């Protein structure tokens, strides 16, 4: 078994966005805090958001409750990263 390597919340969010949108590493590395997500990216529908939340839970070993999720969370890449960072320190 290989050892578990610590994954930063930002790296996890970036990796999951890359997988959902089918982007290259270069494309997703251009995502900045102010990059708009929900509404700006047609692939990011409610089904994709459901998958994204579960995948983040799985990769970061966190639990995301119903109450945690609101529209603002998916407005920008920065909001999502800030949320993930907050959840891992809880």
């Amino acid at each position: 078994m290989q050892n578990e390597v610590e994954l930063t919340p930002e790296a996890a969010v970036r990796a999951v966005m890359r997988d959902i949108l089918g982007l290259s590493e270069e494309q997703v590395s251009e995502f900045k805090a102010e990059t708009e997500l929900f509404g700006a990216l047609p692939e990011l529908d409610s089904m994709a958001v459901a998958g994204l939340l579960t995948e983040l839970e799985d990769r970061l070993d966190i639990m995301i409750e119903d109450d945690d999720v609101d529209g603002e969370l998916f407005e920008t890449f920065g909001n999502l990263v800030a949320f993930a960072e907050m959840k891992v320190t809880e």
Partner: protein
Amino acid sequence: MTPAPAFVSYEFADRKELCLSLAAQSSRRVMLVPPLFDEMNRMRKMLVDVMRALETLEVGSIMPDLPGTNESLVPLGLVTLTDWQKAVETCAQQHDISHVASFRGSAVTVTNLRQADHWIFSPVKGATILRTMLRTRVAADKESGQATSLAELTAQAGSGPIELAGNILGSRLFTELNAAEIPDFINQRVVRLESDNKPGDGQIPGSALWLRAEPDDDPAMSSAIARDIASWLE
């Protein structure tokens, strides 16, 4: 010429269930058990490409339909996880399979084959698969003006059939899946994506196609999976 898979079948519960089969000029064979629900649709092309890549590596493969999925004539609402586990076991017996590759949620369907050699790709427990489906339902309910929660829907699914992301799940399938943990076999190789930091025995390049909005393929990933399976069979 690109090798074409053929349909074969296995008999389970007095019915024939279909399998895709790609024979090879060798005695080495593996059964690929597809992921569950939407993840199966999103990864099927990638998995059929794995079968083709295995054929070029002289490994035969077979990929069964689980009862209630794909071409199966059984309504999903009548199927239980116990059925899936027995079906996978039956298919392995009828096709003389000793090596099994499972993907994502199908890891919880291969548990009756304790003595087999297992190759397991990015396994998840049943509750993880259900959680995404429940969230999709919460989002759909919200759009139609109904406020539901994961907890409410989970309680509801325990006492009767529930519609989640276009699938009707019977309460027994839901309850069994919700409790199904990732198995640990005597002989197993757990393989993950390079971007996945959880412990495993190997990593392959590729992306999490199960997260895509639409089904997609990834030829490089399919080849990498086929090469890993072929060398594991040696």
